[in-house]
């Protein structure tokens, strides 16, 4: 697979406060994104995720390092013509209607009139805003703004799309809609660079991830390589069994009515729990083996730092 985005040794610092004290935000970021993948860029707040994206898109200038998009320098028109960007908490010109807004942005790509009109219609359809085409953006809800933001990011039919916290602040329905659009982009063969701290969504959509903490990439690779598939423990919910007898087999976490949630760490004890339930004429409601999640990995890494 071809490398779409290549970042080498990226450094950026800002001078903050009255005394212009230098604060290092990015400390030698290096990563590469391959064609057609959804790349998750993970990190706690203030880790440098947005700063990295801003450097890539030319909104801020790195002090050191090299960025290439499709083999072109990141600030070249050739690179910019192939990329789309949805910023975090997008805010757009609220006096414009949805279609006026897309029309304005399409002029920045020098699109021809007929192609432009067709593209705007199809994008409004894609983000399910056809009925709001003539509504001013000031009347848009958060979710609608996120979707029109997604539409403007796709105006030039980009091969690489940068999404900065696209799922932040959305309700479950809104998150699902944006997730569906990202999945559709992936199916169309587009490359998506997704910055987020909502781990469940990243786990659901991304092929590869990089974890950034304090301006440094701590870990990166394919999700299945990073997360161990070994069973960490098994969660068993059962009832009709004496809690005292269970304590020897695992950790009793909570009781709801006569139901007990038991965390069993040894695999051989799972069998014993089932036997105990059978002999006590109890009932096993659920039995879920838990493997390592992205959240476990992420929390572990952040705590180590």
């Amino acid at each position, binding site marked *: 697979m071809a490398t779409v985005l290549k970042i080498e040794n990226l450094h950026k610092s*800002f001078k903050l406060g009255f005394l212009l004290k230098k604060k290092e935000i990015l400390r030698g970021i290096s990563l590469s994104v391959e064609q057609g993948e959804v790349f998750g860029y993970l990190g706690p707040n203030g880790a440098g995720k947005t700063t990295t994206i*801003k450097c890539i*898109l*030319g*909104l*801020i*200038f790195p002090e050191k390092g090299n960025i290439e998009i499709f083999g072109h320098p990141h600030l070249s*028109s050739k690179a*910019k*013509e192939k*990329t789309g*960007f949805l*910023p975090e*908490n*997008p*805010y*757009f*010109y609220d*006096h*414009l209607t949805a279609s006026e807004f897309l029309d*304005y*942005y399409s*002029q*920045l*790509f*020098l699109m021809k009139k007929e192609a432009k009109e067709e593209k705007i219609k199809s994008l409004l359809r894609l983000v399910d805003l056809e009925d709001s085409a003539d509504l001013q953006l000031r009347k848009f809800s958060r979710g609608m703004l996120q979707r029109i*933001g997604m539409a*403007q*990011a796709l105006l*030039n039919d980009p091969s690489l799309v*940068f999404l900065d916290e696209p799922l932040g602040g959305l309700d479950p329905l809104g998150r699902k809609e944006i997730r569906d659009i990202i999945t559709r982009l992936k199916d169309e063969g587009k490359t998506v660079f997704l910055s987020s701290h909502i781990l469940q969504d990243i786990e659901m959509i991304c092929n590869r991830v990089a974890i950034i903490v304090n301006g440094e990439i701590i870990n990166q690779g394919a999700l299945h390589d990073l997360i161990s598939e070994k069973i960490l423990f098994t969660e068993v919910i059962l009832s009709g069994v004496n809690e005292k007898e269970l304590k020897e087999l695992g950790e009793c976490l909570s009781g709801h009515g006569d139901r007990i949630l038991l965390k069993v760490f040894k695999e051989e004890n799972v069998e014993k729990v089932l036997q105990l339930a059978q002999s006590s004429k109890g009932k096993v409601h659920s039995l879920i083996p838990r493997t390592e999640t992205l959240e476990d990995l992420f929390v572990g890494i952040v705590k180590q730092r």
Partner: protein
Amino acid sequence: MKIKAIAFNTFREAIRDRILYLLLFFAAVCIIFSRLLALLTVGDKVKIIKDVGLSSLSLFGALMAILIGTGLVFKEIDKKTIYTIISKPIHRYQFLLGKFFGLVLTLFIMLLLMSFIFLALVFFHTFTIEWEMLIAILFIFFELCLITSVALLFSCFSTPILSSIFSLAFYLIGHTAWGIETLIKKIPPGAGKTLARFLYHFLPDLENFNFKTEIVQHLDIPSEVYLYSILYGIFYTLFVLIIAVLIFRKRDFI
């Protein structure tokens, strides 16, 4: 084409600004007030109306340029609308020039409206359309273009309040810089005189665009003077815009 798109969007945004209409209202009040002033003054009433009217056009036009121009770029950065623009295949200078021409277009429309009120008032007194007034108005427009570029320059690195103060200072200095010329003649040679000479050449002289008195008094103005003022306006505006572009192209949008 890209500059045009940004200019029209800037125009659409600026034309919705309430400050613009408030200033337009006060400009209209001042122009009409000149009629009352003419009644209270001894001398040619029409000349008073023309003088006060043209001064109102200049002052309120400048206030419009400053109050809207200083927020133009700052607002884009503050509201982060600039993020999605700059990430598109567009050069930063194109964005800045788009903003400049958008405001110039807005000011042109406002100046047209104010001029219409002014010329109508003059017409009611003279029963002729005094086309030569348009020359004075044209030079007011040149002055407004220069002030717009200055407001835009400050807007590239400062907050709207500070930028407004700086731009207003530029306007006031620009209309009093001729005093330095007198000062140069009066002070003895030395460091003071050198400093005064430097300031005289460095500071703007907005009186170059002021043909109000000459036109109201029907005085002859050599065409070289007009030419000098036009070139002065074009080159000074270009100079300020180049500085603005140089600052803007290196700016981080945090």
